[in-house]
């Protein structure tokens, strides 16, 4: 048997958009499994509905813009956007909620700006923000993780979930008020506004606080963190944005926590609650809308983290990742302009 010598470089084929997007979807799988385990089938119906709508809108938009369907539909970007949005919106939401969000994301935020690569804002974040400001009631009805006994969403059968999502029929044994709940962050915000202190708030609903960052939410975030580390390992993303973002949230929340532990939750709670891991690893790292220079990415992450913490703590919304990412998207070109890397050997410009 001849020993084949292949000369370097050992290429594995070009790194296409669809390969990149495929790895992002793989990275999302642990998070999806954890979310489904804690919040029930509603997570999967959200993702499936969002994906079907995304492919439909993408096809229509590409047809109208007279672009090749084969080339752009298979690049996977619509699937990633739809899946991210499907995870981010409340489980058990009616079918039209992800559809409206995906429409805003794919048609308004992507194709009207010129398609993938030309969009200044992250499509999934736009879709989420539009839903958040348009449907405040629907967007605060989060599925209750299992602690209320037999009625929690993860104990609903698949058929019952479909009934809630598509026909608005709620099983007789339960009600929408039992199935849905304010998210732990929302609850925290509301109680702090009433002037309560952290120990009292935890005392009101200790089950909801889970082990360290809110029942269900904490493990979903851990799973997303694992998926994010996979993406860094596979070199889909670099470490700069997630580290900058988580680091700035940790440092800011640690400072506030040390100053006033009665009115601020601890830093660990902050980085494992809400959508932090989804935002830090999957949304802020979008190569189109974030910075391109290495130093710029670090600044991008730090800025997104600081804004998230500020909106969470002092702003009107319980979680501010989507807003923070959009604001940083807006400043990304300027950050890039001020962080142009110097070419090796070049002298620094004289001032």
């Amino acid at each position, binding site marked *: 048997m001849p020993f084949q010598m292949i000369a370097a470089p050992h290429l594995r084929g070009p790194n296409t958009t669809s390969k990149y997007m495929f790895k992002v979807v793989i990275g999302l799988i642990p998070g999806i499994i954890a979310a489904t385990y804690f919040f029930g089938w509603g997570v999967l119906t959200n993702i499936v509905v969002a994906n079907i709508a995304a492919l439909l809108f993408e096809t229509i938009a590409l047809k109208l813009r007279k672009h090749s369907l084969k080339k752009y539909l298979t690049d996977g970007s619509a699937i990633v956007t739809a899946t991210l949005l499907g995870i981010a919106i409340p489980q058990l939401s009616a079918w039209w909620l992800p559809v*409206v969000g995906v429409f805003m994301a794919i048609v*308004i935020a992507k194709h*009207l700006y010129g398609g993938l690569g030309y969009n200044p804002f992250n499509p999934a974040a736009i879709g989420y923000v*539009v839903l958040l*400001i*348009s*449907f*405040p009631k*629907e967007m605060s009805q989060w599925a209750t993780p299992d602690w209320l006994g037999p009625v929690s969403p993860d104990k609903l059968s698949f058929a019952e979930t479909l009934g809630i999502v598509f026909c608005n029929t709620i099983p007789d044994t339960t009600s929408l008020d039992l199935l849905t709940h304010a998210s732990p962050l929302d609850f925290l915000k509301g109680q702090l506004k009433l002037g309560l202190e952290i120990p009292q708030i935890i005392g009101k609903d200790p089950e909801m606080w889970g082990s360290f960052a809110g029942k269900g939410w904490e493990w979903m975030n851990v799973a997303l963190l694992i998926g994010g580390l996979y993406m860094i390992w596979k070199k889909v993303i670099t470490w700069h944005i997630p580290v900058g973002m988580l680091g700035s949230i940790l440092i800011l929340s640690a400072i506030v926590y040390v100053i006033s532990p009665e009115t601020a939750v601890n830093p660990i709670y902050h980085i494992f609650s809400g959508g932090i891991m989804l935002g830090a690893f999957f949304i802020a790292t979008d190569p189109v809308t974030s910075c391109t220079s290495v130093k710029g990415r670090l600044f991008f992450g730090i800025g997104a983290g600081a804004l998230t913490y500020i909106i969470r703590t002092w702003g009107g919304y319980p979680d501010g990742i989507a807003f923070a990412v959009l604001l940083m998207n807006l400043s990304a070109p300027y950050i890039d302009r001020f962080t142009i890397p110097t070419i090796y050997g070049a002298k620094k410009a004289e001032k």
Partner: protein
Amino acid sequence: MAKVSYKEISINGLWKNNPVLVQLLGLCPALAVTASFVNALGLSMATTATLIASNVVISLIRNFVKSEIRIPVFIIVIASAVTVVELLVKAFAYDLYLVLGIFLPLIVTNCVILGRAEAFASKNTVVASFVDGLMGGIGFTIILCSLGAMREVIGNGTLFDGMHLMFGEAAKAMTLTIIPNYKGFLLAILPPGAFIGLGLLLAGKNIIDHRS
């Protein structure tokens, strides 16, 4: 002076040189008050009245105003016209006056009016200026009302809601419910909806222009 064709003035005001869609003037009221059809109609009719009045008066005095001081003179004329219109709305449609609020006196700062005074009325005859003001005003009205109707249908699911503010109690029956049991799409009512809606209207005009 070149002979003016009324047909050309009309086409310019309504389409080719539409104040909102082409000149992008008067965007502040166009974006801020078009959350419903009735608001858009009220404000654009007030603007049209002001535009006609200021165009006619400025055209009448155009030969007596020295070029150096024309802008202050125009502004005084426009401000007087706006004050008259504002008082009329306050007298005959008080509810509408309350809804439109600050945007009624702010018509003074609407660039469409000063723009037409400077570009047209100060150089043309009274009749031509009247036609120009009327057509420009109708062009403004059509766009504002389309935007208002669009935002009202998408945001609220209704059309012509609140017409009694302008036309008295009998007009309450005009409210059409386009989409029954609609939950409302708040974004269309909020400022971002105005920007997106105006952008879509602009795109629509450009498509039509490119096709022909």
